[in-house]
């Protein structure tokens, strides 16, 4: 009994302390921004880093004098990898904390969960992770890669440079891999790849026994044509997958794997010696040779007080999103949502690969696509870099969305304009 009372008391105290923490800084001379990333639960592994990156960006901006002469103040909440809780916390950030903009979410499920909240309360979300496309909202900016900024260039690279003719599309069973694989399959078939040369395979979240699938891939690869694996396997399941590949002796020279969810952070928990040569496609790698990147890495190491902490692509996306917002606010002279939404389109800010990224009318940004090969030290060697690509929200390779475009400039202001029927709204024919 006494224990129960204590436990209950502790939980209550914890709950109180989080609200108290947020309530304590209600000064008017600051601009508040929300940071909506899971700090506990399964997604904490990826999202905690982004929270740190956001806090670093805010600190750096304040050193430069803040925005509009006011200091920025980050309000951090923890939605605990729980999708409905994301919506609740987003509502709290906008209604109670009155934040000017929110930076956050990782999984598509969490983004879909908060989307109606942002539209209803008319606030702004910057979403920093690569995603499957097929969405456009007036209130969301997608600074991560759309499929045409990651998946399609990667497949092109394998087909042209490595001569791949047979494809395994392996992914975790949820919306991002499913949609991406649908787009990739349509794309490959439009390039003349036959149905029997494509193998699609889905596994549950956190799958850890890859023996059967790896040996299936081996068998699929023994048909006499050059084979590659396109992996949309998510998060934690990657480590056992790569371990199994290494142990079964599948080398990158024989069957290369190109991954869209594996970056420096994911490789940090892995001995990468057996993986040398497997590929990843991103818009940024820590190994990018550019002064702006060297500066960013230095700041990051100083901020985290750990010079082994790696940087990764979603951090770059957060960096671009944050700087674009700052620039738009300064151009508009206010943090008012409607005015920022108008002023941010066309804003160009430096990205970390040495170029600039521009916010497009479809709320996606331009950035180059980099293909990297895994090295023994857990970093990537960049083997190809494309010119900047505009993110395409509605894929041109899916029959449902090929006629749709999105343009949030006035007077069109439409997220799904159908160029075939000339009307806003609704799916294609």
């Amino acid at each position: 009994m006494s224990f129960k009372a204590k436990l209950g008391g502790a939980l209550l105290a914890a709950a109180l302390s989080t609200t108290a923490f947020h309530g304590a800084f209600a000064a008017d001379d600051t601009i508040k921004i929300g940071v909506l990333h899971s700090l506990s639960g399964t997604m904490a592994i990826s999202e905690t880093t982004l929270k740190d990156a956001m806090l670093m960006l805010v600190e750096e901006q304040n050193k430069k004098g803040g925005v509009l002469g006011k200091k920025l103040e980050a309000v951090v909440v923890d939605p605990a990898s729980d999708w409905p809780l994301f919506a609740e916390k987003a509502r709290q950030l906008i209604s109670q904390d009155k934040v000017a903009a929110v930076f956050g979410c990782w999984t598509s499920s969490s983004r879909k969960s908060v989307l109606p909240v942002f539209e209803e309360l008319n606030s702004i979300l910057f979403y920093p992770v690569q995603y499957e496309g097929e969405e456009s909202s007036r209130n969301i900016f997608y600074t991560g890669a759309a499929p045409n900024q990651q998946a399609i260039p990667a497949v092109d690279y394998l087909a042209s440079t490595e001569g791949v003719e047979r494809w395994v599309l392996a992914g975790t069973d949820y919306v991002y891999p499913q949609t991406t694989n649908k787009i990739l399959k349509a794309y490959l078939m439009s390039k003349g790849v036959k149905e029997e040369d494509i193998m699609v395979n889905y596994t549950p979240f956190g799958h850890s026994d890859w023996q059967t699938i790896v040996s299936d891939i081996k068998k699929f690869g023994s048909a006499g044509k050059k084979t590659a694996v396109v992996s949309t396997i998510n998060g934690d399941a990657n480590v056992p997958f790569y371990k199994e590949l290494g142990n079964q002796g599948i080398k990158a020279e024989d069957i290369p794997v190109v991954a869209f969810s594996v970056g420096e952070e994911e490789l940090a928990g892995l001995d990468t010696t057996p993986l040398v040569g497997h590929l990843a496609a991103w818009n940024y790698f820590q190994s990018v040779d550019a002064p702006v990147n060297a500066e960013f890495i230095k700041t990051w190491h100083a901020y985290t007080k750990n010079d082994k902490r790696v940087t990764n692509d979603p951090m770059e996306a957060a960096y671009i999103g944050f700087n674009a917002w700052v620039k738009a606010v300064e151009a508009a002279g206010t943090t008012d949502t409607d005015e920022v939404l108008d002023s941010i389109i066309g804003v160009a800010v430096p990205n970390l690969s040495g170029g600039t990224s521009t916010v497009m009318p479809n709320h996606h940004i331009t950035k180059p696509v980099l293909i990297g090969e895994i090295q023994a030290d857990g970093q990537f060697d960049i083997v190809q870099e494309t010119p900047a690509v505009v993110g395409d929200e509605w894929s041109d390779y899916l029959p449902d969305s090929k006629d749709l475009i999105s343009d949030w400039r006035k007077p069109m202001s439409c997220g799904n304009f159908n160029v075939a029927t000339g009307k806003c709204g609704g799916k294609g024919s």
Partner: protein
Amino acid sequence: MLIRFITLIFLVLASAATSFAQGSDPKPLFDQLADANFNQAETLVGQIAATGDPRVVPALNAFSEGDLYFRKSDKAVFSAKSAGSQLELIDPVTGESAGQVAKGAVTKIKVNNNLRRAIRAALGGLTLMSPDRGARLSAADAILRSPSAEALELVEAALAKETDGEVKARMEEARAVSLLSSDRSIDEKRAAIETISGLGASGLGVLNSVSSSIDPSLKPDLDKAIASIQNAQQLWNLAQNVWYGMSLGSVLLLAAIGLAITFGVMGIINMAHGEMVMLGAYSTFMVQEVIRENAPSLFDWSLAIALPVAFLVTGLVGFVIERGVIRFLYGRPLETLLATWGVSLILQQAIRTIFGPTNQEVGNPSWMSGSFPLGGMTITYNRMWIIVFSLTIFFALLFVMKKTAYGLNMRAVTQNRRMASSMGIRTPWVDALTFALGSGIAGIAGVALSQIDNVSPNLGQSYIIDSFMVVVFGGVGNLWGTLVGALSLGILNKFLEPSVGAVLGKILVLVLIILFIQKRPRGLFALKGRAVEA
């Protein structure tokens, strides 16, 4: 592109094999790599190999491993190895040291998969006649992996001189795959198909790749060979599924065996069980960190050292949990469930705060890495050792339970607490020690699971459901039930997976268990007698 390139190397190599010393110096070719793009580098590798100079082999190896650099000051190319904070430069041809430089003074020459393939093929040609047996073997392997008609003469020249039985057999196979795409006679090709059909899965790729271009009179032989490999494969597939099933079963057994004690024997619904596994894995990480810092030579022993450490750490944590929380809640299963769930969250967040939310790198000792072929299947060492390990733990635990005084006390307390107490057994201590034992065993399971899964704060969560499933399915309170339950669930899963996919397979297994529990609520091996009613 690659084919044309390989053709080039082998054409030149074939002539080099007959007239060895051409007198061309590979050194300037290496130096040109400094400014070359990937395609140019590929041509250069071909030209380097074409000099036929065996001294270039170490430098080409270094190139493929990303250890080739050029000096920024004069663009001279060296292979390099790390020497403290500096790099020691080594001349790519003579192999002599060229002094040490700071890492910033040199630039790495990039290598991609195409280049690595090209280097592998070039090395295959260069080392076929190497005096080192291992080098000849891997040279034959390299040709097996990228067959080309041009390698044929080289292989035959090497074959004529080869005396070692195993290398000879491998070269025969390499000769056969190379012959298939050459313009040799039909009879020779027929014999080659015969040889390849003994190669199993790797031969299938070769046969399939020539099936469209081969002489029509050989087509029946080819199809027969393909069919015979596929038939043999099917049998091996069956064996492979059983093996994979046992392997999955052994992982389930490892995860569940500690729970078989805390939940099965003591009846505590222990939601913090997964976190004990996680703590075991983190103990392994800590042990490896200490070894890496202080005694890298002991790394292969790290798991052996981690076992007692993990057992003690998690046993102690288990002891504290039992004394601090669970003992107040005996006989109140719902409250135990909630309390242990709370403990599991606290432990997770504590680890997250101490070590950070990201994965920690736990290395595989050399004896846990790689695989060996057994007939038509590939057996990986880590899975094999985990099967051995889990069975060892199982039987050790069985011994403790059935043959020691402590095991007797434990069984007495769980079967009839008041009677045992009247006989003078200190039941609270037995409870605490039993819970500590179950936790400790979960900890050593964590040592093994750190070898195949992520070491992150979430490690335990992925195993908790599976563990309960195994214990309930096998029969609560029965260790043998846990063994049989784990293995049969593993094998069932692996037989379902190839036909219905991993996602549906998992669902089907769950549905089957639910149906089974309807029929036999107490699991496979139900306890009988009065203990059940208590």
